[in-house]
Structures are given as structure tokens and as C-alpha cells.
């Protein structure tokens, strides 16, 4: 009988949010009224040398306490240790419109803005490189190299080539080959809370930083490098965060700027972004051009998949190495395809950097795969749902590129939505303009290989219980609205079977919380959940030992149940508090520790941690032994299948998405309320990218055309469809109580489902996202 797992649980920090008491970065007021406001000077050019910065006038302005530039720090940082290409301020040149050149700290916002006006910068403009195709080409002059330390040719950031089986041979044996050229506009996270940071460098030479971040640990490391301070003198505090989705999962230049300004002034400095600065920061989904080819036999067996991806990275690396891998390696699952070629290139361009965004690297390729599958289905006369079921993996399989799939509910997902949507009565049978389509998804529950190759668990949780009977859980897992604090509480609560109000989560402070790598790549439920469960199990032992003493009964006869310890034979019981207080004797507060480290997923090869400290590009031998084998490797994979029903107005091209049936295999829904919320939120975000969201760059200048919520359009409530959610529980053998991820995977199926439904409705296949009204009517006109 489950105590909390599987029950709809309101978020443990929800009461603060609905009463307006949750403290976000801009709500923080430090005592003493000494906090300064920082503002950033940004480059108006996409590519230019910085000849001279003169801030003497700015410094003289009354109310200005400090101005900082690259002279204050040239140390490089970046979220991936192998591509640290960012600095607090642009050093010799600026590489995108919006690049951070200088920052001021002043008494108030108006003074800070006026100070920026007084900073004189002399630039020597360089031609911007904006087309990713151009970045592939070798350069003819050193000035054309956007990031000089990149070791690749031209302006290439990363190249990945992977090959399995024999695609050529497979093609010869295939009855149908479908291919297409796809292009995906960049999209961005568009969370409602702009980023912000407060840095406080005290007279004790210690730095405290509050930041709206998903990755306090990576921020902690980066600060240490940039400020040249040991980590133990730096404390990072994550307040409530108003959404992240990957857009707050890097250490940022504005965070470094705030720290530098605080050190210079000896006062706390707050930098809060205006909405256009949030867009400039970007780190959204990469604009990508993908050529894809898929083949199958006439009996519907998928035989090969070939992908060529050109990924526009913008001016920095960010998570780009991983993006380049994920565009290819996550395209195989959930289907059995043995023959696979992938060629991916991520390039630098003079635009705001792209980075990690929900479904990182997999969303665009998944769109292409799922629409080609539908084309194959049509060609060989198969139903699209049945064709997918036929090729889907079973539990306990290994993919062609060495991924170990354990729990696998993809077939059940497809069957559920096929039946619920009444697919057989609707597919190809509805009147012109109305259509139904299916799309599937496959995603990691965190990366088995951490980005820093230390011998350190990926998540550690400490639990403390003291005299008051409260259960304090310490973890650095970042609560950004997805419900991670609640997951930790449920994992601990399920083990201790105590009143959930005893449990309090302390996840905000690097001083006290043991390291969790952060909320990205959908790792927290699986990894922090397991760590929490293990910590609770350790403390459970202490409680049961104490209870055993009190009740004079062996531990095997005792059970924790509903805030009590029950003796199974006599049915007598003592309270949780009684057992705790007994356990305190001679030891003081109880303490339990648990951690998670991804297992060696291929026993024949050495663990990655044994390659300690080697930042070599040879790739960690986990899973397969090919280069980059670890990219995409995960202790468990989620899958999903969605059916989307919509109506297209063939004259205006406007799409009305009527209903979505969404089945997501999350292993076990620890908190069905949160899992449903994530699925519905993912559908919202995916529909946005499919139909109307687009990060538009000016073709000639690289300037973002729409850095505001008016022209960057997210789906409004009146255009959201009804959604029927099915949580498929395939009971992962390793996940906490069987759970795996449900935060990013649920975005993948909706985009292809929409495209396939549009084809069913009006007979046009669109291969450029977003599928805006004008593209739809153009395609319809072309068809005629």
C-alpha cells in the first residue's frame, strides 16, 4: 500500500507561491539598503573588434560606484569543461549583438542607465558570419574566426560522425526509401521570470551569490574559476525560480559581472534582466538544418536511418557538444533500426548562443524521423500506429548505438492513444480540413556520463532527524517549478511512511546541500530521487533499531506505517517521535546519506570514473566503445506517443488544435499531479514551436527581430487544446519506485503529431518549423 508515491500531491512549496510569499531573485531585499543596481553595456555589432573602452565619464557620474570590463577578468568559463569559451566581458572582440562589454553598479536603475550612456567604445566592425553554411567553410583571414580557440576548421564548433551497421547495404535491401530536407527555426524558453542575480562580496572576502539558476553547482564552479577564489569561500543560493526549461542551466556572464562589481565596490550588486535581455541571452533550441533519410522493407521493417545535421550554435559553445550528439544519437530509439549514419556539425555564428532547451537536441530530429515514418507508412500501405508498434523496442534491449533500454512502455503508449482517439474511425476518414496524426518520443532520464569527469556521485542527499521529529532533507537538486522538492519529499516519505508535513526540503544553499548536478537533461527524479530514497533507507535503519529496543522485538518484525512503528505480530505500536528520541540517545541527531552514480552500463568496459581527470576527446567507454559512445547513454529512457486532432482553415492557414491524447511512459508517476502538469506544459511548448514560436534573426545583421512577448508568440489559453493524459507505468527496474523522467520527454511527440495531422487534414507536408499560416497556404497552393 503506497504511502505517498502515486498520489496526487500538491507541491510542497506551493503554499508560498499562491500567497505571493515565495521569494524570487528580484524579491530579495538585503538589510542596510546598500544594494547597488547593475546594468550591462551590450555590443550593437554582431562582429567587431573592441579598440578602446573609455568609461572615465561614467565613473565620475554621481551615484556610480564601479565600472567593470574585461580588464577585471579574462578567465574563461563555460558549462562544459571541454569548451570554455566565455568570459565575463568581451575581451578583444564582440561576437553577437548583445554581447556583454561592460557593466556598471550604481545607486539606482536610472543612474546605471545614464552611466552606460557615458561609456565610449570604439569598434572596428568585422563582417558578421550569419549563415551556418558559411561557418563550415575554411577561413581566409584570422579575423573571420569567431572563437579563436576553437580547434576545428573554419568556424566549426563540433563535428560528430557515427556509423553503425551498413546503411548502403540496407538501402539496397529496402523497398521504400524516404528522405527530406528539414529546417527548424530557433525557439527560446520564454519563462516568465527574467534572469537575475545578486552578488555580495563581503569584507570577510567571501562571496555570496543568489541567482535564478537551474545549476547552482556549475555556477559555484565557474565563479571559483572566474573570481580566482576557492570554492569554499563562495556560497551560491538559489531562490524560487520562475521557470528554466534549460535557459538558466549555464553559468552566465551577467553572474560573473555581478560578482566582479560586488568585489570592486564592497557592496551587494543586483542585476536583473529586462525582457529583451532575456531574449538576447537566448541559449534556446538551436536553429538546425537536417537532411534525413529512412528506409524500410515492404513488410514494414525499418532498415536504416541517415541523418546530416547542420546546427547553428551562435557565438558560444554552451551545451553544444551534447547538442551535436543528441541530434543524432537519440533518433534511433524507440525503434529497432540497425543501420545508422550520423553526421552532425555545430558551428559558431555571430548570433546569441543557442544552448539546452527542453528535449535538448532530440526534438528536431524526432520531428523529422516521425514524419518520415508516416511517409513510409503511406507508401507501403501500413497504418502509422501499427507500423510504429511493429518496429518498437521491447523492454531489455540494446539499441544499435549501444543504449541499454530497460523499462519500455512505447507499445502500450501507442495502443492507448490509438484506442482513446478512435484512430481507426478517423485517420484518413475525416472531411478535408480535419486531420489526425501520431507522433512518438524517446528521451533520457539524465545522462549516465556527467559533464565533469570527477569521481563523485551525480546526486547526494542527506537526511537529518532531530528531537522535533522533523525530517530535514538536504539536496542541491534545483526546484524550478517542475516539483523536484516534492519528488524528494515523496521519496523520503515513502520510505519512512511518516506524516508528510514532517518533511522539509532544503535545496537552495551550496553551503549546506550536498551536490546534485542540477536540473537539466531530466535527471532529477531518477538520480536525486534514488539518492533521497537511499538516504531515507539509511535513517530508517536507525529508527527501526531504536524501536526494536523500545518494543523488545527484532527489526524484522517491525514496520513503519503512518507515522508509527508497528510490531507485526502483536500489533502494538509506538509513535515516530518516540522511536526518534530513543535513537538520539548517545548519538544526537540522526543522519542518513544516500547517493546516486550511474552504473557501468557495459560490464566489459572500464567505468568512466576510472579515467579520472582525462578531458580527452577519445570518448568515455561506457555502453559502446566508439567515440562519443556515452553521449545519450542513460540509466533509463522515457517514451511517449501522442495523437493530435486538429482542423486547418485552408484559406487562412490558421490551425485549430482540438484535442491531444497523450501517453507518456514515466515508469511510475510519483506525483501524478506534477507528471500531468509536465505533460500538459510540454504540449503547450511543443505546439508553440510547431505553429508559431520563432526566434527570428535578421538575415543581414544577426539582430534578433522579436525580443519581446508580442512578436515571440507563445500559445495563449484560448488556443490550447483539451488534453487526455495517460501515464503509462512500465515500472523501471532502477528508478526510484519505478520512476523515470517526465519533464522533457513529453515535448517530443507533439510536434510530429501536429505535422502528421496537418497532412491528414490538407495533404501537405511541411518541413520547416514553425508551420505558420503563410507556409501552410503556400504549401496548399503549390499542391494544387
Amino acid at each position: 500500500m503506497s504511502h505517498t508515491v502515486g498520489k496526487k500531491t500538491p507541491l510542497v512549496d506551493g503554499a508560498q507561491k499562491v500567497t505571493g510569499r515565495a521569494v524570487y531573485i528580484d524579491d530579495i531585499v538585503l538589510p542596510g539598503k546598500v544594494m547597488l543596481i547593475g546594468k550591462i553595456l551590450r555590443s550593437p555589432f554582431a562582429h567587431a573588434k573592441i579598440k578602446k573602452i573609455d568609461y572615465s565619464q561614467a565613473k565620475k557620474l554621481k551615484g556610480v560606484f564601479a565600472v567593470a570590463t574585461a580588464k577585471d577578468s579574462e578567465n574563461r568559463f563555460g558549462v562544459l569543461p571541454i569548451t570554455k569559451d566565455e568570459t565575463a566581458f568581451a575581451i578583444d572582440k564582440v561576437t553577437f549583438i548583445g554581447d556583454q562589454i561592460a557593466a556598471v553598479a550604481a545607486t539606482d536603475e536610472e543612474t546605471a542607465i545614464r552611466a552606460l550612456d557615458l561609456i565610449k567604445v570604439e569598434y572596428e566592425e568585422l563582417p558578421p558570419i550569419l549563415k551556418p553554411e558559411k561557418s563550415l567553410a575554411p577561413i581566409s583571414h584570422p579575423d573571420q574566426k569567431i572563437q579563436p580557440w576553437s580547434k576545428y576548421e573554419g568556424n566549426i564548433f563540433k563535428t560528430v560522425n557515427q556509423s553503425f551497421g551498413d546503411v548502403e547495404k540496407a538501402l539496397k535491401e529496402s523497398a521504400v526509401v524516404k528522405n527530406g530536407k528539414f529546417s527548424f527555426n530557433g525557439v527560446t524558453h520564454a519563462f516568465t521570470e527574467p534572469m537575475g542575480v545578486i552578488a555580495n562580496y563581503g569584507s570577510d572576502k567571501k562571496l555570496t551569490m543568489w541567482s535564478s539558476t537551474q545549476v547552482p553547482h556549475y555556477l559555484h564552479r565557474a565563479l571559483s574559476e572566474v573570481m580566482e577564489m576557492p570554492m569554499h569561500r563562495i556560497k551560491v543560493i538559489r531562490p524560487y525560480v520562475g521557470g528554466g526549461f534549460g535557459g538558466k542551466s549555464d553559468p552566465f556572464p551577467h553572474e560573473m559581472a555581478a560578482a566582479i562589481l560586488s568585489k570592486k565596490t564592497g557592496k551587494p550588486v543586483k542585476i536583473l534582466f529586462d525582457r529583451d535581455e532575456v531574449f538576447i541571452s537566448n541559449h534556446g533550441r538551436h536553429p538546425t538544418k537536417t537532411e534525413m533519410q529512412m528506409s524500410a522493407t515492404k513488410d514494414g521493417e525499418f532498415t536504416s536511418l541517415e541523418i546530416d545535421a547542420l546546427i547553428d550554435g551562435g557565438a558560444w559553445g554552451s551545451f553544444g557538444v551534447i547538442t551535436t550528439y543528441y541530434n543524432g544519437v537519440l533518433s534511433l530509439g524507440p525503434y529497432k533500426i540497425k543501420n545508422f549514419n550520423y553526421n552532425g556539425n555545430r558551428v559558431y555564428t555571430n548570433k546569441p548562443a543557442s544552448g539546452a532547451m527542453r528535449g535538448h537536441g532530440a526534438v528536431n530530429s524526432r520531428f523529422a524521423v516521425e514524419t518520415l515514418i508516416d511517409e513510409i507508412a503511406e507508401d507501403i500501405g501500413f497504418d502509422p500506429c501499427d507500423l510504429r508498434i511493429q518496429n518498437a523496442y521491447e523492454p531489455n534491449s540494446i539499441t544499435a548505438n549501444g543504449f541499454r533500454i530497460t523499462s519500455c512502455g512505447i507499445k502500450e503508449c501507442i495502443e492507448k492513444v490509438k484506442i482513446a482517439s478512435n484512430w481507426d474511425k478517423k485517420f484518413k476518414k475525416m472531411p478535408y480540413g480535419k486531420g489526425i496524426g501520431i507522433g512518438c518520443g524517446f528521451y533520457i532520464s539524465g545522462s549516465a556520463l556527467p559533464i565533469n569527469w570527477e569521481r563523485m556521485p551525480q546526486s547526494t542527499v542527506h537526511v537529518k532527524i532531530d528531537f522535533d521529529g522533523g525530517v530535514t532533507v538536504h539536496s542541491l537538486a534545483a526546484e524550478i517549478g517542475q516539483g523536484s522538492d516534492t519528488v524528494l519529499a515523496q521519496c523520503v516519505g515513502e520510505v519512512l511512511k511518516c506524516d508528510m508535513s514532517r518533511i522539509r526540503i532544503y535545496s537552495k544553499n551550496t553551503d549546506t546541500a550536498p551536490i546534485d548536478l542540477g536540473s537539466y537533461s531530466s535527471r532529477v527524479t531518477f538520480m536525486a530521487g534514488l539518492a533521497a530514497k537511499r538516504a531515507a533507507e539509511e535513517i530508517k535503519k536507525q529508527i527501526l533499531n531504536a524501536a526494536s529496543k523500545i518494543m523488545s522485538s527484532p527489526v524484522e518484525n517491525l514496520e513503519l506505517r503512518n507515522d508509527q512503528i508497528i510490531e507485526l505480530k502483536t500489533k502494538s505500536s509506538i509513535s515516530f517521535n518516540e522511536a526518534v528520541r530513543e535513537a538520539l540517545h548517545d548519538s544526537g541527531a540522526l543522519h542518513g546519506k544516500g547517493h546516486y552514480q550511474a552504473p557501468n552500463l557495459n560490464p566489459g568496459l572500464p567505468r568512466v570514473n576510472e579515467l579520472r581527470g582525462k578531458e580527452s576527446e577519445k570518448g568515455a567507454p561506457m555502453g559502446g566503445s566508439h567515440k562519443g559512445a556515452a553521449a545519450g547513454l542513460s540509466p533509463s529512457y522515457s517514451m511517449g506517443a501522442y495523437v493530435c486532432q486538429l482542423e486547418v482553415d485552408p484559406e487562412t492557414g490558421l490551425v485549430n488544435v482540438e484535442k491531444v491524447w497523450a501517453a507518456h511512459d514515466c515508469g511510475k508517476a510519483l506525483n501524478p499531479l506534477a507528471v500531468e502538469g509536465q505533460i500538459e506544459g510540454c504540449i503547450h511548448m511543443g505546439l508553440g514551436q510547431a505553429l508559431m514560436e520563432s526566434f527570428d534573426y535578421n538575415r543581414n545583421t544577426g539582430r534578433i527581430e522579436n525580443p519581446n512577448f508580442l512578436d515571440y508568440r507563445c500559445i495563449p489559453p484560448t488556443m490550447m487544446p483539451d488534453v487526455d493524459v495517460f501515464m503509462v507505468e512500465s515500472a523501471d527496474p532502477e528508478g526510484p519506485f519505478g520512476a523515470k523522467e517526465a519533464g522533457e520527454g513529453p515535448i517530443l511527440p507533439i510536434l510530429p503529431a501536429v505535422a502528421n495531422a496537418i497532412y491528414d487534414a490538407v495533404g501537405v507536408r511541411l518541413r520547416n518549423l514553425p508551420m505558420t499560416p503563410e507556409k501552410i497556404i503556400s504549401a496548399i497552393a503549390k499542391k494544387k
Partner: protein
Amino acid sequence: MTLIPFPNKKIGKKIVEFNINNEIVELAIKPNDLLLDVIRYKLNLTGTKRGCDMGTCGCCTVLIDDKPVLSCLTLAMQVQNKKIKTIESLQENENMHPVQECFHTEGGSQCGFCTPGFIMTSFALLKENNNPTREEVKEAISGNMCRCTGYIKIVDSIKKASEKIRGKESK
């Protein structure tokens, strides 16, 4: 120098008196002070949020004389003698208002940043119409933006709250 310098103009403050959350306050306000900034930074009522500056997200929604208003596009001087309600005022003693409670129990709030704005808009809606259809709810909240929930559980929360409110009123 810069193409668009911030204008340098000295302007005087005026005393503005208004009722906020049932308390009369008197503040020295500049003509270009925004109501949102006065609420957040002068009165320290940080429940109302700043999301987009341009009235395109609704996170700054407060009630002025019971009407939902975008406080980021409202001049603070214009609220002389008006009654303002922010999220902090909804709670009676230790109990949450039904709208707050339902956003909490029905999953209408995830990261919580847009939540105060939605709650104020819903509060105003339910005062005007205590039994809205789902379509009427969606229409009423179409000036507020959420990136986390996809709006479905927000509509669920408001519908549940309307049930609770009608239940209370019939007692």
C-alpha cells in the same frame, strides 16, 4: 556617445494617498513611477511580479477598484484615492482564499511566478461571474501568460474555486 540617451530631467515628487490591501498609505511619488515598482520596491509587496514590462504577460496584475489592471503600464500617480488589492490581501486570517487553495491543490501553479497575476484575475472573474464555463475562464485569463502549466490545470483550479465559492455562498 549614445544614439538614444536617457533624458536628463529633474522632476519633483508629489504625495499620493491610496488604499492598498485595506491600509491607507501616503507616498512621495514621481510622475514616471510605475505602480508595479511602487508596490514592489517602495511598499515591499513583492508578491506582484515583473515579467515583461510591456503588458504582455500579466504577471503584474493587481486589482484597482476591483478591476484587474496591468500595473506595469499604470502610472503610480493615477491611483490617488483608489483601492488597490494585491495577492497579499487575499488571505483571511490563517486560511487561504478558495482561489489560492485551488491553485495549490489542483496543480494550477508550478514555478509560481505567474500565479499571483492569475489569482488576481481569477478573483476578479469569480466576483463578477461565480459560475463561469471553461470557455469563459479561458477568455478571462487570456491576458495572463504561463509557460509551465499549459493552462489546463489553471482552468481546472479556477473551476474548482468557483465550486468552492458557490458552496460557501449557499451556506
